[in-house]
């Protein structure tokens, strides 16, 4: 049976057919036909953000928590430009996102029409792929294809720009396309897999180096199995935290600029590095020439362009990392490697990560410890960007893949609150905690209104040092203590702000018993801002100076 539908109705129907039940957006003139159609949908819940960037990060939060595609909507012009940061963030962290933007009518494109911007041109370098749709018929192929592209291979953001006249164009639809799904990549090269297994079996001091790709591929369990079978001490990138429980005996935690001292030192000694879904980011490797100087390298990644990009691999395997790990497991011999494991444990004892002031609730590490003690592994943990992010990465006992939402590649301040809202919308059964700072929270503070409106179970821990901590830290360490533009002379009353924006707030600094006040706030359902003043002189240690070798850590 055929139906007559507009491009807008078609788009909404295709989203429904993709299984989308929640999406986030912000309306405006050029996307009103789609909003009109969306208003008629009985299955899709539209979350009205208070800024398009917030909508983008809410969609990202849903995607990061579940691995499914997140969808966000915005209008043309400023709506589209406001989305850009969230799209670029998704690109750098390989997050499946479909962003749909309205565009001025086709006949007006290129005339500097009201709210016209070249959304297609602007998003070329920050999307995996993008479309400017020129007819309603095209939507039948473009929308499923956008989902397929976002999920297949290395995941990433896809933008679909739809001119207003295309949204209003009515067409007859008889056949519906199949929803876009992940397409499996070509199988891993069996010879390379057996070569890699032989290298692991022959290695004396191998290390497993896990990246975000392990989380994206759902390969965390296989990675842990491989580590256990062959006794591979394991380091994780910021994006991989949670893939192996940090308190697993083989875990060396996070590597790199703010990695644990023993972790970076172990990397210096390894003779084989097995990189899985990791991309040798500069914050992870430090000075590349000095990274794992004695090691041969096995590199497994779904993106062939990552192989040999930064470090030449002795064996490079372009494959789905779960499939590759499953291929490796039977070929890798059980080996307890007592000498190497003992050496790594010795490094752990001799060069531990320090957690100063951890016993005091009102300190950076104290707040993290208290939150972790109050919650179990079912809680999801988001962060903003800055000192608090690194402290949480160092100290929070992450034990579950997809438990951890953080802006790794782009390092976007303002990510935390909306991404955490998205995670809470996607998995309402969980408590979602967002650690943030007084700089970051102001970058998307308006989304507290959204959190209140949706009544998400979100607890925001605001570590307030009245300072842009990482800037302050770098100015102190590397710019002759010339502090400039990094200390806030004026700060809002965050408790009043939160209450004014419609969510509960607690000030631990004023509380008689901060420990109890924190516990109570975490247990109460719904959104809550939990404010605590912390010491501005605290640094993130250790720190590898930018461009230095990872062995040269300050404060280790």
């Amino acid at each position, binding site marked *: 049976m055929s139906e007559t539908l507009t491009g807008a109705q078609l788009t909404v129907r295709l989203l429904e057919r993709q299984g989308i039940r929640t999406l986030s957006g912000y309306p405006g003139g050029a996307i009103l036909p789609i909003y009109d159609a969306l208003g008629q949908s009985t299955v899709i819940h539209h979350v009205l953000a208070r800024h398009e960037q917030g909508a983008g990060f809410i969609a990202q939060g849903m995607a990061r928590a579940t691995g499914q595609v997140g969808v966000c909507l915005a209008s043309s012009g400023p709506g589209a430009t406001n989305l850009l940061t969230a799209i670029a963030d998704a690109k750098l962290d390989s997050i499946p996102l479909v962003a749909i933007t309205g565009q001025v009518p086709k006949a007006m494109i290129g005339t500097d029409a009201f709210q016209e911007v070249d959304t297609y041109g602007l998003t070329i370098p920050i999307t995996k792929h993008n479309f*400017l749709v020129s007819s309603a018929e095209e939507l039948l192929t473009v929308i499923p294809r956008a989902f397929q*592209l976002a999920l297949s291979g290395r995941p990433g953001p896809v933008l679909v720009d739809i001119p207003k006249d295309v949204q209003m164009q009515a067409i007859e639809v008889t056949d519906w396309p199949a929803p876009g799904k992940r397409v499996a990549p070509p199988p891993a090269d069996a010879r390379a897999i057996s070569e890699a297994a032989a290298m692991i079996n022959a290695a004396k001091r191998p290390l497993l180096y896990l990246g975000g790709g392990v989380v994206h591929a759902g390969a965390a369990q296989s990675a842990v199995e491989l580590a256990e079978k062959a006794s591979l001490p394991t380091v994780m990138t910021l994006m991989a935290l949670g893939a192996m429980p940090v308190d697993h005996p083989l875990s060396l935690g996070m590597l790199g600029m703010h990695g644990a001292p023993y972790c970076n030192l172990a990397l210096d000694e390894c003779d084989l590095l097995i990189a899985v879904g990791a991309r040798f980011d500069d914050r992870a490797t430090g000075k590349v020439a000095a990274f794992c100087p004695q090691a041969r390298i096995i590199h497994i990644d779904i993106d*062939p362009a990552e192989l040999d990009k930064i470090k030449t691999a002795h064996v490079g395997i372009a494959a789905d990392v779960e499939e590759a790990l499953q291929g490796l497991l039977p070929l890798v011999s059980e080996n307890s490697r007592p000498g190497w494991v003992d050496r790594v444990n010795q490094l752990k004892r001799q060069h531990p990560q320090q957690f100063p002031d951890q016993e005091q609730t009102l300190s950076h590490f104290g707040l993290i410890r208290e939150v972790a003690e109050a919650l179990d592994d079912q809680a999801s943990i988001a962060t903003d960007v800055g000192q608090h992010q690194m402290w949480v990465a160092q100290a929070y006992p992450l034990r579950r893949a997809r438990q951890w939402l953080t802006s790794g590649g782009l390092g976007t301040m303002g990510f935390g609150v909306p991404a955490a809202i998205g995670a809470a919308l996607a998995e309402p059964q969980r408590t979602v905690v967002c650690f943030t700072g007084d700089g970051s929270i102001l970058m998307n503070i308006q989304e507290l209104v959204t959190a209140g409106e949706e009544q998400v179970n979100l607890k925001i821990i605001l570590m307030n040092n009245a300072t842009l901590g990482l800037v302050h830290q770098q100015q102190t360490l590397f710019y002759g203590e010339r502090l400039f533009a990094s200390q806030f002379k004026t700060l809002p009353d965050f408790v009043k702000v939160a209450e004014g924006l419609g969510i509960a707030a607690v000030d631990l600094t004023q509380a008689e018993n901060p420990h109890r006040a924190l516990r109570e706030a975490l247990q109460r359902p719904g959104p809550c801002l939990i404010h605590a003043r912390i010491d501005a002189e605290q640094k993130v240690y250790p720190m590898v100076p930018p461009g230095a070798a990872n062995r040269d850590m300050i404060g280790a």
Partner: protein
Amino acid sequence: MNAINRNEQTAIARAVLEIDVNNHAGVMSHVVGLFSRRAYNVEGILCLPLAGGEQSRIWLLVNEDNRLPQMLKQVEKLEDVMAVRRHGGDHPIFSGLESYFR
């Protein structure tokens, strides 16, 4: 040509890339954008549709550079790119056009 004179230009090793792409608006931007974001100059561009008009072939003349292998991988990843072939700088496609650039 920046500060490089014509003699120096001819001394630099060149590569010619032959790229089969879907023929629609924006594809050229995707391809050359990968070069421009790396401040990697494209010395020559030639593009015409292939028979049928569904696809085009882009010919690029670029300087040899140790970034070129990574560039080729990035070009291959583009959704609208079907195939990439690398030729030596002496490929006749551009030298045949020299009479138009005097």
